[in-house]
């Protein structure tokens, strides 16, 4: 199990670095899927099989599906990938490596072994619907609010009258097919 943990952790780190450094958007998203699978293996070796399954189903399945759908809707192939100058990486990277070294040093000051055995779905569900049931209700409200908010933001132009919501959404969908240098944006809102 320890060997599996280190192998999966190395795969997760390498795949995450590839996510950050790829200039092609779709390549970055595919490496992100690999990274999430590797983290799922890490969860399994930590004795959390329920969370490992949810990581694959929800993160690598549902959330990445939303990403891929957004990429298809946005037609990012028409744009050139943004260039990242090397000087943009150097400063943040150097500073964050210093902070990471401090955190790793702080973590290694004392060590504990993890508890043996795994925590299965039964115990997780008992905790989830026992002391944490209020959190479950709040999470459902958060998801409902996100659903309504996403629909409101994505489907309707902000300056359209309420009666023209359908026509506005149709014109916004047609605007996606236009060239990137001809945005369908109303210029008046900036003034």
């Amino acid at each position: 199990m320890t060997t599996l943990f280190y192998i999966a952790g190395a795969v997760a780190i390498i795949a995450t670095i590839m996510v950050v450094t790829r200039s092609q958007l779709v390549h970055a998203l595919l490496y992100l899927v690999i990274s999430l699978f590797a983290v799922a293996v890490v969860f399994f070796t930590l004795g959390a099989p329920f969370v490992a399954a949810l990581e694959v189903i929800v993160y690598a399945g549902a959330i990445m599906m939303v990403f891929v759908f957004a990429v298809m809707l946005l037609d990012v192939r028409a744009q050139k990938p943004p260039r990242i100058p090397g000087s943009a990486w150097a400063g943040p990277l150097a500073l964050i490596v210093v902070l990471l070294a401090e955190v790793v040093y702080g973590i290694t000051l004392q060590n504990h072994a993890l508890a043996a055995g795994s925590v299965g779905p039964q115990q997780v569900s008992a905790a989830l619907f026992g002391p944490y049931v209020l959190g479950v209700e709040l999470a459902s409200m958060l998801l409902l609010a996100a659903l309504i908010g996403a629909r409101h933001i994505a489907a309707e132009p902000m300056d359209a009258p309420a009666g023209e919501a359908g026509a506005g959404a149709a014109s916004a969908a047609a605007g996606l097919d236009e060239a990137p240098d001809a945005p369908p944006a109303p210029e008046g809102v900036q003034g």
Partner: protein
Amino acid sequence: MATVSLNSGLILAAILFVIGFVGLITRRNLIVVLACIEIMLNAAGLAFVVAGARWGRADGQVMFLFVLAMAAAEVAVGLALAIRFRQTLGRLDIDEADEMRG
């Protein structure tokens, strides 16, 4: 069965979080920025699960489920904003959105 030490899991979570943070502050594509936020949330959830496994309790996994729900809500709203961003500004470069200067 030899188990993983607490340090290894926490260090892995810290490294993943830092990689996501570097991507967040250096990349300019809005979709990649959202993906980096997902990486950071995932690393935070990994730290929760490691801490829960330290005592063999289910609380860490429960907190990971809440992080998961929040990540799903965040990515739904964020990608809707990306679609609106593209329609309004014509590109996905976050440097285009510099009109809200103080």
